[in-house]
């Protein structure tokens, strides 16, 4: 009868507490491995979410044909927004207001009071039409910028490598020879806009001595309308314009960053792999020290399969506890941490996917890490194992 039975669940749980220091060390090691996995997945997910949240399929970006995919180098005539509104059907309108946002976009050196050297920042000259087209933009603090004022994205400090306090409402930023007062802080659902500084378009044009625009963002009534803007740009070759759906633009950026994301997943695999080896090492130590105990269980009549299952249970319990600890630490310490990259900044994201991957890796560590040493210990003849020291 005993041979058919599994060992009691409590037996495995109690074993963990019989060797508290060894269990604590194993738990700590596993937690670090799972936390590393969570950080790397958080990086990949944050980058993906930032680019995905920025693209709206109904919004078309119209910019210079000659600028390739680089909007910073684009220069289009200032009359383009009016021409687009007059020539293209299907532009979104509410209460007589057209959802057409003329914008001037540039990368420039930006200084704050607390910075010893100016940092590279992204500045966008906008009108009040901008939040209509960029629906995800929300003023989190302060007010819309008036003359001599700018509003900053909540991650702009990260892009500039400045302290967060430097870009608080009421603070000052200096770029292109002019000092601007920060009137507000905005957020944009994790999109790339959050790392930008928004200034009134006309004033920015005056400061930069420019009359042109970098681009026009147009919100269409339907996704189908994107083709009509494309047609307009292809017909009016004298304007040298190009139309790209915002979602396609940022999808191409996703493609651009694919090697980085692939590298991230490789790091996840490597970290998980090294974690499994570390787990194996720990479990070998743990099992070797219990050979007599395991042999005694066999002598009592428990089958090898049942003992093996208990060892896997112990390791899996530890790994699952490590996963919980790592996820709590991840949500607390990692989630929302700003990371700077070429297009601005984004936040590390510990989301459901990251937690699922971390828990999966932990389960793998528990099961795969425990099996080989347990199998090895089970191969020893009972009499020989009982005699071992």
């Amino acid at each position, binding site marked *: 009868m005993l041979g058919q039975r*599994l060992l009691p669940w409590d037996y495995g749980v109690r074993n963990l507490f019989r060797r508290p220091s060894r269990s604590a060390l194993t738990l700590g090691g596993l937690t670090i491995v799972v936390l590393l996995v969570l950080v790397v997945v958080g990086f990949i997910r944050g980058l993906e979410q930032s680019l995905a949240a920025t693209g709206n399929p109904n919004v078309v970006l119209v910019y210079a044909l000659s600028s390739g995919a680089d909007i910073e180098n684009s220069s289009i005539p200032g009359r383009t927004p009016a021409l687009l509104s007059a020539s293209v059907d299907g532009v979104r309108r509410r209460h007589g207001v057209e959802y057409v946002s003329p914008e001037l976009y540039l990368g420039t050196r930006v200084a704050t009071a607390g910075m010893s050297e100016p940092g590279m920042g992204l500045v966008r000259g906008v009108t009040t039409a901008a939040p209509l087209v960029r629906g995800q933009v929300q003023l989190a603090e302060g007010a819309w910028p008036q003359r001599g004022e700018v509003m900053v994205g909540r991650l702009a400090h990260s892009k500039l490598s400045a302290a967060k306090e430097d870009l608080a409402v009421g603070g000052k930023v200096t770029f292109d020879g002019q000092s601007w007062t920060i009137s507000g802080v905005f957020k944009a659902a994790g999109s790339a806009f959050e790392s930008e500084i928004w200034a009134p378009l006309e004033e920015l044009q005056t400061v930069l001595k420019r009359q042109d625009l970098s681009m026009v963002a147009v919100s269409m009534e339907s996704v189908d309308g994107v083709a009509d803007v494309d*047609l307009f740009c292809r017909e009016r070759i004298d304007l040298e314009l190009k139309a790209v759906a915002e979602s396609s633009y940022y999808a191409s950026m996703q493609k651009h960053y694919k090697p980085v994301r692939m590298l991230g997943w490789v790091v996840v695999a490597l970290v998980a792999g090294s974690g499994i080896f570390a787990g194996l090492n720990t479990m070998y130590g743990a099992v070797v020290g219990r050979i007599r105990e395991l042999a005694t269980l066999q002598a009592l009549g428990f089958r090898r399969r049942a003992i093996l299952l208990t060892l896997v249970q112990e390791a899996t319990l530890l790994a699952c506890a490590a996963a919980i600890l790592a996820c709590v630490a991840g949500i607390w310490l990692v989630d929302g941490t700003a990371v700077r990259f070429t297009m601005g900044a984004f936040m590390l994201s510990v989301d459901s996917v990251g937690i699922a991957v971390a828990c999966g890796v932990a389960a793998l560590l528990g099961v795969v890490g425990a099996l080989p040493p347990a199998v090895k210990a089970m191969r020893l003849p009972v009499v020989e194992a009982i005699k071992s020291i």
Partner: protein
Amino acid sequence: MSMTATRTLCFTLAAIASGAATLSVGCGSATGSSASAPTAATKVDASRYTLAEEPEGAMGVIDARDSVEDGASLVLVGRVGGAANPWVDGRAAFTLLDPSMSVVANGEDSGSSELCLDDCCAVDRQKCTTLVKVVDATGKIVPVDSRELFGLKVSDMVVVKGTAQKDRSGNFVMLASGVYIRN
């Protein structure tokens, strides 16, 4: 493993298998229904815009740009292409390249009758390409992708019949009423 545990495992596996089977049946039926739904192309009769015979008197894009006046009837010949993306998604419109020109790979040396699709040849491309818009009797563009409507591919040689649309800024668009695919 006890008999109870074995039985539980079998039941779990059976439940997973049946769940997967249910999902796959569900997915299959959904695909089936979408396949039978009419697409934009099936709503528009392609034969109305397809010419059975090649019209006579076709001229190239470069000649047409120079000589044809706004509103004149025109038969134009050329190859689909001359742009990195010659198609307009969801519309019967495409870029047509003069038949005397050919496209070479970006960065390659190009002769007088060759151009690449990079920025260096942007001005040359404008001189020898035009946008062809297939329009209905009311002058509205046909709302079906030309790849879907005519089965066109890049580099297909086509002859289009219609009206020239030109303005003072030098913009030239072909409003096509019929398309003949030469090969």
